[in-house]
């Protein structure tokens, strides 16, 4: 919402400075988005007269001018404008001036051998429009030497405020002035109450055929008028806020549309077919040729104003061109109506048309203003265009908007934490237009003014109330206990209107006056902010980062064809309105996003990266279909180093990462088994699944499938892992038993077995561990050999077994007995033979 300072002053009697006004606006909830003071940029430009204009000696298209500024010697100016001529009065810029339209600071110069000491400006060069057909050509009586800003009255600053959706009343200069006056910045000027004496019956009559289209409408004709340009002050106001002046009649509708927030429309009576205007819903196939030059195909959900020929306006949004007023109009008909906000919003969105009328109707307009606004507009139109007014035609009835709200003074402190005296609170409400209907020591009851649709809304506190203008009603879940639902609704009916009033008192009275109060201490030592499940996300992140992986945050969606490489891509997880085709599917796993990120890094010359992320993996839209995974990818080779030669990454690097995360999160390592049934985005022979027990999948790991890598433009080695954080059982807070610190030294024995190449090392290790659970403390695989010194299809696995005696030092015989048990167990489990 834009307005100029002088427009505001037409509604507000004030001594306040521009800065006081803008600061106050922002504080009371009408946030200032910008103040445009056009005078500052144009301050140096003065009116000058061309005394001589001669052809430039060396250029056909240029002229050499002598220009007078009213003082000092004539200035030489080289100018290319076709309209440069002796006697022209225009606008001159001197060296050092910044030219807004070109972004250049002017310097003295020489153009093809002729000195140019200044510049005559076009409207575009001054940043005042698009006209660059020639230099500005002012009337002959424009005073030479006067600042152009002063001459053109450009010293009127333009203020732009952001109006929140609840404040339809502040989409008007009068409403803004009212708020400022309430905040102590002056006095709101009362609106005039012109007396119009009707001279003839209304030329058109209203019919409301469908109350969905409109509930209350007024109109009246003016005949014998002459429509032409509106006066300069009105054109200046409209131009300043970015509106194009059209004709006096149309400009007056905008004057009150912006000034009072009361949209109006004028029909040319001569162009209306028949003598009735009907508020109805559009019929299929009907169209409207609108004032903005576009044609709209109307639907039965659009409310229209129709004459005998069909729709002539999209009610409350935009008028039609065929019945619009122009300079030939001699009789007009002013329309002033109340439209349903929701219907206006839907129609406006359906046809993608944004107008000042729409933005006001969809936020709700002053319910009682139509008659006064109509009289004011009539008076102004007759003042500017002459003519005489008809009687008023009316249909429907003024909405039933009157309601009260009660404020208990104590609540200003109890809810607002504010120390506001009752008199002051009542005073603020009065200045805002809330009239006291009852007051006692503890409370005040006020009548809500017709323009404050946001205060004490009809539907408040009632789940069954009809939809109010903003559609604000309670929406309690069906499974809420009836007693709770009823108590909540009853409480809302009391508290909401009161909170509406408290908000008014506090925003006008000043939020700064409320002294901050730290939250009361809930407990001397706070309970943990994170649940154990939440805390382990941070732990997993730190484990991964400490293992050299860079924590990332990537989008949770990606293109569905890429997503399909990583798992199911159900239609239920495909966005209906993606911002890009490659961001349309909720991802099956963060690994997909991380591999894409790795490919981007590779394309920038960083092929070796280790990236991790804790984020969402989506299986379905339901609560349990949204998983949280800790994932990582590593690409490329390890760096060259004297102590450890470079090597390609492999599945065991990813397995190590996954196990490290699981170990940190308290999963017992001995309970984890490895199987080869990893998802399809892994290399089928070089990937695995880590399970706890037979079913619970805790993690996957492996090399990325070459096809997937190729599809993502990853050329080098790539490995990945996923840890399913939701699947990890809750950590148990169990006291540990005392450790067994046996006084006997452990004994270590090595064994080497020849096994079929297909034997899983894990099977051998388990067999060895299980051979004597009391004595065997640890079994580690320290060598795996496959080569031509072994029989075809065989490999050698060598293990290091640690025996921990608990009762007494082991004898050689006891050690040998355990060794035989180990060999027997391994042979039985794997078909191995002991190597000599």
């Amino acid at each position: 919402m834009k307005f100029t300072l002088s427009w505001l002053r037409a509604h507000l009697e004030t001594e306040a400075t521009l800065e006081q006004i803008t600061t106050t606006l922002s504080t009371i909830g009408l946030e200032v988005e910008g103040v445009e003071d056009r005078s500052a940029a144009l301050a140096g430009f003065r009116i000058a007269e061309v005394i001589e204009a001669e052809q430039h000696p060396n250029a056909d298209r240029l002229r050499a001018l002598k220009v007078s500024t009213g003082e000092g010697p004539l200035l030489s100016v080289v100018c290319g404008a076709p309209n440069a001529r002796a006697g022209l009065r225009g606008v001159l810029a001197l060296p050092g001036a910044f030219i807004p339209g070109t972004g250049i600071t002017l310097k003295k110069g020489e153009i093809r051998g002729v000195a140019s000491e200044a510049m005559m400006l076009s409207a575009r060069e001054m940043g005042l429009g698009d006209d660059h057909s020639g230099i500005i050509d002012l009337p002959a009586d424009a005073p030479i030497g006067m600042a152009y800003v002063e001459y053109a009255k450009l010293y009127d600053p333009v203020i732009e405020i952001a109006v929140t959706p609840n404040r339809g009343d502040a989409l008007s200069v009068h409403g803004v002035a009212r708020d400022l006056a309430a905040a102590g910045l002056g006095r709101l000027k009362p609106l005039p109450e012109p007396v119009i004496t009707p001279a003839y019956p209304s030329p058109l009559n209203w019919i409301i055929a469908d109350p969905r289209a409109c509930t209350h409408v007024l109109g009246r004709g003016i005949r014998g008028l002459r429509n032409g340009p509106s006066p300069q002050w009105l054109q200046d106001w409209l131009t300043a806020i970015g509106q194009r002046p059209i004709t006096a009649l149309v400009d007056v509708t905008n004057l009150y549309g912006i000034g009072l927030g009361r949209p109006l429309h004028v029909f040319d009576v001569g162009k209306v077919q028949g003598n009735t205007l009907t508020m109805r819903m559009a019929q299929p196939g009907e169209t409207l040729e609108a004032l903005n030059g576009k044609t709209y195909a109307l639907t039965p959900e659009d409310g229209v104003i129709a004459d005998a020929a069909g729709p002539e306006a999209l009610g409350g949004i935009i008028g039609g061109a065929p019945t619009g007023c122009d300079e030939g109009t001699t009789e007009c008909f002013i329309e002033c109506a109340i439209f349903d906000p929701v219907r206006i919003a839907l129609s406006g969105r359906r046809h993608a048309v944004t107008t000042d009328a729409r933005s006001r109707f969809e936020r709700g307009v002053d319910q009682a203003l139509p008659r006064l606004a109509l009289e004011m507009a009539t008076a102004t139109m007759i003042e500017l265009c002459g003519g005489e007014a008809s009687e008023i035609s009316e249909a429907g009835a003024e909405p039933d908007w009157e309601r009260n709200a009660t404020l208990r003074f104590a609540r200003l402190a109890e809810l607002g934490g504010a120390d506001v005296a009752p008199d002051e609170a009542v005073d603020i409400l009065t200045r805002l237009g809330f009239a006291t209907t009852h007051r006692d020591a503890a409370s005040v009851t006020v009548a809500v003014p017709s323009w404050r649709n946001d205060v004490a809304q009809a539907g408040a506190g009632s789940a069954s109330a009809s939809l109010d203008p903003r559609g604000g009603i309670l929406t309690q879940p069906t499974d809420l206990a009836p007693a709770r639902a009823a108590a909540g609704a009853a409480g809302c009916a009391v508290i909401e209107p009161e909170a509406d009033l408290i908000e008014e008192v506090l925003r006008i009275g000043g939020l700064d006056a409320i002294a901050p109060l730290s939250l009361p201490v809930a407990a001397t030592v706070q309970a943990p902010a994170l649940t154990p499940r939440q805390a382990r996300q941070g732990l997993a992140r730190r484990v991964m980062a400490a293992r050299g992986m860079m924590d990332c945050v990537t989008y949770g969606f990606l293109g569905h064809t890429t997503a399909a490489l990583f798992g199911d891509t159900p239609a239920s997880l495909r966005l209906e309105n993606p911002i890009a085709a490659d961001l349309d599917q909720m991802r099956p796993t963060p690994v997909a996003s991380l591999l894409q990120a790795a490919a981007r890094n590779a394309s920038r010359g960083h092929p070796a990266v280790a990236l991790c992320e804790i984020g969402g993996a989506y299986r379905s839209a339901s609560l349990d279909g949204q998983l949280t995974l800790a994932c990582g990818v590593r690409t490329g080779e390890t760096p060259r180093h004297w102590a450890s030669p470079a090597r390609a990454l492999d599945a065991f690097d990813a397995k190590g990462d996954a196990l490290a995360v699981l170990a940190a999160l308290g999963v017992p390592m001995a309970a984890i088994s490895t199987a080869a049934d990893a998802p399809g985005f892994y290399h089928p022979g070089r990937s695995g699944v880590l399970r706890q027990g037979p079913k619970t999948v805790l993690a996957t790991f492996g090399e990325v499938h070459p096809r997937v890598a190729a599809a993502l433009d990853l050329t080098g080695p790539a490995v990945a892992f996923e840890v399913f954080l939701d699947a990890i059982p809750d950590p148990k807070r169990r006291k540990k038993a005392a450790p067994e610190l046996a006084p006997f030294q452990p004994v270590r024995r090595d064994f080497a077995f020849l096994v079929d190449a297909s034997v899983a090392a894990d099977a051998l290790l388990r067999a060895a561990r299980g051979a004597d659970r009391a004595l065997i403390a640890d079994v580690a695989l320290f060598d795996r050999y496959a080569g031509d010194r072994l029989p075809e299809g065989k490999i050698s696995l060598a293990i290091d077994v640690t025996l921990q005696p608990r009762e007494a030092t082991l004898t050689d015989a006891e050690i040998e007995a355990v060794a035989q048990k180990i060999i027997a167990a391994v042979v039985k489990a794997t078909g191995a033979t002991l190597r000599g």
Partner: protein
Amino acid sequence: MSASEPSADDAVRAETLAAIAGAADLRALDAVRVASLGKSGSVTALLKTLGSVEPALRKERGAAINALKTAIEGALDARRATLEAAALDARLAAERIDITLPPRPHPPAGAGDGGIHPINRTIEELTAIFGAMGFSVVDGPDIESDWHNFSALNIPEHHPARQDQDTFYLPGRDAEGHQIVLRTQTSPLQIRTMLKGEPPIRIIAPGRTWRADHDATHSPMFHQVEGLVIDRGITLAHLKGCLVDFLRAFFAVADLPVRFRASYFPFTEPSMEVDIGWNRKTGEIGKGSDWLEILGSGMVHARVLANCGLDPREWQGFAFGMGIERITMLKHGMADLRPFYEADIRWLRHYAGDALAPASLAEGI
């Protein structure tokens, strides 16, 4: 043209396609290619006959032979793809390793590169600060119902505020018939928390949020932290105190100027925007005379309480929400939003937090 030529084409076609189908490996397939399209191949031989065709018929004849050539090339490509896929599958099968082998005892060299993303670092920091004020952290789903995301928060279907938030929609409806959206804010956690338990409530909800908006200052996915305090006797003065305390702790500026301006949010009343003092030119927080909008807040709207079955006559409190990227960028002087989600290793190395640095009030944040 003699009648024998089309049948010669047919013979070459049948013979070559059969050979392609029968090629057992890529080498055999290449032999078929040479035998048909090579210098002395069967199709090449047909092309060579063109010169002897009557000029009037040459165009038609040429087109016929080229069609044959195209058909054979297509068959070759299709067979090559099949054989390559089979070869890859065979290679992958042969590359099988024993995945039960224990991994190496250390992460691969090149480590030392790890770090914590600035967004997650900020979440840890604000968890520490609010945790000290007695808040606990709640989390919830990214894919939400529009009831939790909008309606319950007093943003009915046609409310302008719902249009302002460019919402991502997923197809279908949930069990209650509500539309399914990607949450546009973390505020639905207010609703889930109030429905789940009785006050007193002190929670924050940091998490991912989504809006269909993408430019230099908007990302389709970003992070917010929502805060909610519900109790008896919690007033707007507490709201101010809590947020002033947080902002001063987070930016580590003990006398940080904080300003509250009246505003509007559908789910709070009264509502306020909160500004902090800074120097617009240098970006220094707490210095200079400019104001910077940093978060939205307000007393929880009576309708929101009632929607969750809380009686506003008994319970009241405040809520706030802020952008995690925004406060992170301000704290660290970052200029651009987009690199947060790019996973550019150079940016991450520059801005990531140390893997082992704690985010605790005791050690300074």
